[in-house]
């Protein structure tokens, strides 16, 4: 059922290939994937019960958690292959691979505007001798920052993000400002009200339409069924099923292991 072959030609959109990847904690294998490709469809959902290894897999892709063995590679549409698992975690964003955080993470001393300018700023302006470049960075990025601030309704960008929802949104906007070619979203709508969840879905659709590959881990299955072109089902560390949302939703294994009879 799992289609895991990669064509020799460059893919139409960025893909991530996971080969022979194993990760264990204290002898317990939490991820064990033989050969899987992510990004074959514009928006893919990754679902599975708690402890299936979804978040660990995302961390392995970002190399914020080290693999025990295996290889994770980025296959850009321009051809070639970038072995992500041999690179430091800060290099991922340079290759266009960006991930939002499952647990709320923020810079406690930076305002909303600070946080967004940080994400948008090019490294060349963050050198110790570039102490007069704030205006330049602001000028270069103010329009896109303003666009997202208005779209998501941040009241005062010069204030700090206080609520969990605001911090969650800020995390997503930071990811968007990095201009990802491959975006991993780990429970992006957790804790968000319905209107903002809808807005996140709009942005994700726009991004995918523009050529970005998106993979979403989400427990709000309405988001998965409504948004994703393809769904991967993980259990016990492995991707055991993949297919269109409708077929996964009604698949016997998914119903038994995850959804329960009442969901179908």
């Amino acid at each position, binding site marked *: 059922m799992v289609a895991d072959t990669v064509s020799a030609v460059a893919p139409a959109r960025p893909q991530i290939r996971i080969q022979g990847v194993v990760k264990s904690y204290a002898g317990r294998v939490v991820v064990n994937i033989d050969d899987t490709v992510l990004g074959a469809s514009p928006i893919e959902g990754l679902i599975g019960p708690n402890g299936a290894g979804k978040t660990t897999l995302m961390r392995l892709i*970002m190399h*914020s958690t080290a693999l025990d063995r295996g290889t994770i590679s980025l296959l850009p549409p321009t051809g070639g292959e970038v072995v992500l698992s041999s690179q*430091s*975690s*800060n*290099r*991922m*964003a*340079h290759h266009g691979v*960006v*991930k939002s*955080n499952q647990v709320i*993470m*923020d*810079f*406690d*001393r*930076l*305002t909303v*505007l*600070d946080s967004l*300018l*940080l*994400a948008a*700023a090019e*490294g060349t*302006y*963050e*050198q*110790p001798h*570039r*102490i*007069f*470049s*704030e205006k330049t*960075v*602001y000028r270069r990025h103010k329009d896109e920052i303003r666009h997202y601030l208005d779209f998501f309704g941040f009241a*005062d*960008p*010069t*204030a*700090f993000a206080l609520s969990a929802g605001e911090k969650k949104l800020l995390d997503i906007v*930071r990811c968007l400002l*990095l201009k990802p070619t491959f975006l991993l979203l780990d429970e992006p709508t957790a804790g968000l009200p319905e209107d903002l969840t809808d807005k996140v879905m709009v942005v994700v659709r726009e991004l995918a339409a523009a050529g970005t590959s998106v993979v979403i881990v989400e427990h709000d299955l309405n988001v998965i069924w409504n948004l994703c072109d393809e769904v991967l089902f993980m259990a016990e560390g492995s991707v055991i099923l993949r297919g269109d949302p409708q077929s996964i939703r009604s698949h016997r294994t998914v119903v038994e292991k995850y959804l329960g009879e009442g969901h179908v």
Partner: protein
Amino acid sequence: MTFDFLDSFLITGLFSVVMVTGLALLLHLQLGLTRIANFGVVGFWGIGMYVFGVLYVKVDWSFGDPYQFLVCAAIATIASGLAGLLVGWLIADLDTDGVLVVTLGFATAVQLVATAQDDITGGARGMGGLDFPFDIGKVKDNELLWLGFTMAVVAGILFYVWRVHRSPYGRHLIAVGANERLARSLGKSTSRTKLWLFVIASAAMGLLGAMNGVMVRFLDIGNLGIDITLAAMAGLILGGTARVWGAVVGVFLTVGVFDIVIQSYLPLPREWYTQAIPVMREAIFGLTLIIVLLFRPYGILGDMRRDSLMRKIHGR
């Protein structure tokens, strides 16, 4: 304009305040913004002072001052910067405890090397022969002019730090200090940032060390104890580690009050000056640290105010 009211004691006290302010400002970049607790300030400062002193006194230069001073100070600055590169590399991936141990160990190593290599450094006997790179007359006039030069350098450091707060680089430092993992996920090379910060701050500490060597004109390994680190740390924490002016305010209230007001204007017994006062100074600074951290951890000026700064720079 006459400066008759400035006696040698007062000039020395002012120089001490200016020197420690410079070090506290550099420490502010590390501790206040990037949350790297560098307890090895004296090590970098000491390398600058001793490299400068040894080159100035022991090398037979074919040219005299001010070029001799400039060349020796430049080499001392580079040497401290290289020491910063080494320490920065060692601490780049360490947690707070690890940074504390490495930087303290480094400062101790510098003192031990300066003591052990006494044929070069003079060791416990000390080393004289340093002088001002100019001679405008009386010693007091030279000291006063040197105080002016040092103030200009520290004012330059203050301006740089002030600008850092208003630059993408400053934001980057704050992000590394606040949440390194998140900063890395945004593509920021946090290890390289910390490394360069150490190189730059250490080099500047080394330059200040060289300038101190000129003022004291006699190198003594007693200068390489914890005093200068403690003074910079106590001043910065009292004023507020996260604020630009925290270093200035705090050092004036600690070193300024102690080295100028208490030592110059209080009628203390003369015999206290050699033993009791230096010990009392360290004890008071240490006590200040404890009290401030217990009752006002953000210092007198409080935590940084990025919200008002952002409004000031970019409007609402």
